[in-house]
């Protein structure tokens, strides 16, 4: 046990500092006299008051901080730990918030993956004409921010004879597509079977569902953007500021893990339109494609188009297969 000296009395410490034998090394310039103490106290009080004032002034911008979080949202549990009753409450809260913010009565559902379903996407590169209709259908369906505009699908224009993505033109602006000498490669989340983004997330905010869709719990993501750095397909998007969607553009058919509106500071990405696909519909990008280049379905169903394509097409590839991410998104070619 340590040796215990006499406990210090209040106020003694100061006095002791000034009583110490003067030492040239020490920087304390304390005034030993009573008057000096008063002056020092005054100076200390002035310094403390102006310090607090300066701190308050520097924090002033926080006055504009509206709706950053609420106690209910702050305390919300992780998606996989919510009981059905808690989930009900959360869904009701989101519906309430959507109505308050956008004036729209939305239906938010918690759609689960179905047994015996493995979603697969197949895209016919020969057919794609690069019209970007998929890009905009996706924006509308998934309640993506219009300002700044966030898009899940990026269509690359590549010169004939190369799959070197560095030769890709992202911002082609043609009067008419397709253009001679080029082909088009739309890229979105490849829904990898071995997703690097899931591996790196420090808080399990993103994971792969039993039907193969990699989802994000927007209420759990801390916004570190490690998944964005890890994704080899540049498929993830971050809400750098508050997403803005015009009220009349809101799609009221929403899912918790799908297209419900996101908040500032979290990640989002393509989720195969799970609010549609888990309810038996096609993703918006498939439905809108005028060239019939996009095919989607349950690969475990032998009668599905995707099962047919993977069985019968001579050439189909996964993007960056060498990385071992094993995408569920296949690009195929017609002859």
């Amino acid at each position, binding site marked *: 046990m*340590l040796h215990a000296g006499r406990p210090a009395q209040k106020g003694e410490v100061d006095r002791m500092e000034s009583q110490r034998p003067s030492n040239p*090394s020490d920087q304390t310039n304390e005034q030993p006299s009573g008057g000096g103490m008063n002056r020092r106290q005054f100076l200390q009080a002035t310094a403390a008051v102006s310090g607090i004032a300066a701190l308050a002034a520097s924090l002033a911008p926080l006055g504009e901080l509206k709706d950053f979080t609420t106690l209910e949202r702050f305390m919300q549990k992780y998606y996989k730990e919510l009981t059905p009753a808690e989930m009900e409450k959360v869904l009701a809260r989101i519906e309430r918030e959507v109505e308050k913010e956008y004036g729209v009565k939305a239906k938010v559902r918690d759609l689960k993956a179905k047994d015996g379903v493995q979603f697969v996407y197949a895209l016919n590169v020969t057919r794609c004409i690069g019209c970007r209709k998929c890009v905009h259908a996706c924006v509308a369906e998934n309640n993506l921010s219009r300002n700044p505009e966030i898009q899940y699908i990026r269509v690359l224009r590549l010169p004939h004879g190369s799959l070197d993505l560095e030769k890709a033109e*992202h911002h082609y602006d043609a009067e008419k597509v397709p253009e001679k000498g080029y082909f088009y490669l739309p890229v979105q989340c490849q829904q990898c079977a071995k997703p690097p983004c899931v591996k790196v997330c420090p808080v399990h905010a993103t994971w792969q569902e039993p039907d193969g869709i990699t989802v994000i719990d927007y209420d759990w993501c801390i916004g570190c953007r490690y998944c964005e750095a890890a994704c080899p397909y540049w498929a993830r998007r971050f809400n750098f*500021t508050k997403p803005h969607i015009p009220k009349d553009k809101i799609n009221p058919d929403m899912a918790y893990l799908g297209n419900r509106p996101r908040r500032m500071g979290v990640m989002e990405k393509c989720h195969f339109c799970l609010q549609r696909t888990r309810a038996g519909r096609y993703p918006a990008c498939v439905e809108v494609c005028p060239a019939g280049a996009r095919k989607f379905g349950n690969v475990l169903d032998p009668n599905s188009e995707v099962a047919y394509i993977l069985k019968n097409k001579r050439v189909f590839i996964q993007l960056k297969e060498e990385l071992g991410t094993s995408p569920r998104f296949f690009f195929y070619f017609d002859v």
Partner: protein
Amino acid sequence: MITALRNYLVFVSRCVRIAFVGDWRYYAWMGLLTVFCLLGINAYARQLVHGLVMTGMSDEVSWGVYIANFTFLVGVAAAAVMMVIPVYIYRNEELHDLVIFGELLAVAAILMCLAFVTVDLGRPDRFWHLIPGLGQFNFPASMLSWDVIVLNGYLLLNLHICGYLLYCRYQNKKPSKWFYIPFVFIAIVWAVSIHTVTAFLYVGLGGRPFWNTAIVGPRFLASAFAAGPALIILALQVIRRVTNYRITDQALLTLRSIVQGAMLINVFLLINEVFKEFYSGNLHVASSKYLFVGLHGYHALVPWIWTAIAFNLAGMFLLVLPLSRSLKWLNVTCVLCIVGIWIEKGMGLVVPGFVPTPLGEIVEYSPTLNETLICLGIWAFGLLCYTVFLRMAVPILQGTLSKANEPGA
């Protein structure tokens, strides 16, 4: 037990009090740092309101100067080990009484690291999701979860070692070996681990060929063991100037040899990397091309990296020349090494990893004013912490702040 606790509280309160006391130079320095801290807080408040759109980052370049500074400072923290090893393993006498200044610098550096990570988060309000047991901790899969453990562990280790030794000195009591020597040796391994784990954060990303290379870890350690001790050389001279704490030139020259060795290895590893990237000529060279010579007309980083290389080479040559045995030249050398490595490891490592994007698009990044103010604020906060630590430690080590002169003793 209660008296022991009360004694400890007296010690802590006296330490806190002395941090507010000093001569005019001390007040001026602390005042200046406080101003920068407040500017940083102000900038961060704005970032909280408007989001990370206040920074220069984008979906294309999603990490910037925050993570760059974080990476550099993990190295500074790890470099304390370069004073610990000579003292505790090779029984170096000159550095013996100085090692604690290195460890305190490590504490300040880790605090800055934690601040830099926090300001980089989109949802800092959800930090509790990272707390093991309370949130969902993706351990061991995510290297970021490893980083949380090793950084906080290293902070605790150094706080314990410094705090225990200083409290013993304060009581004029011989420290019990069992109470700190095991921790010192754990901290040696731990120091290497913090920087290795930070390197693995980048190395583990298969989709980013610029980072996905085994040499990042060794380069991190070599550059850290050059920049960290260089920073300590400068800090020790400041301590020597403003206090009369005994710091010999010999101690500074011992540190010089450490910087010398580390810098030679660092430049050697850089040459290895440059050779591998450019000689084989495969398509993965794009990021390196962007960094060193520019790519398709984009070359924002080119002047930076060549400044870094010039500084590193000049630093290395000065270090091997006897010229840098004079303190004036040694200081110039240290500044060259610190700045060179800060650029090379920060902007030179983090940003090119994102350019071009995995889909081949080139988007450049440069920090905004608000982002820069936040960085300056965190650096000021770190220096403020380090100054306070020294303000407490120096009088304790000199015996002017001790139990013997406690009131009533």
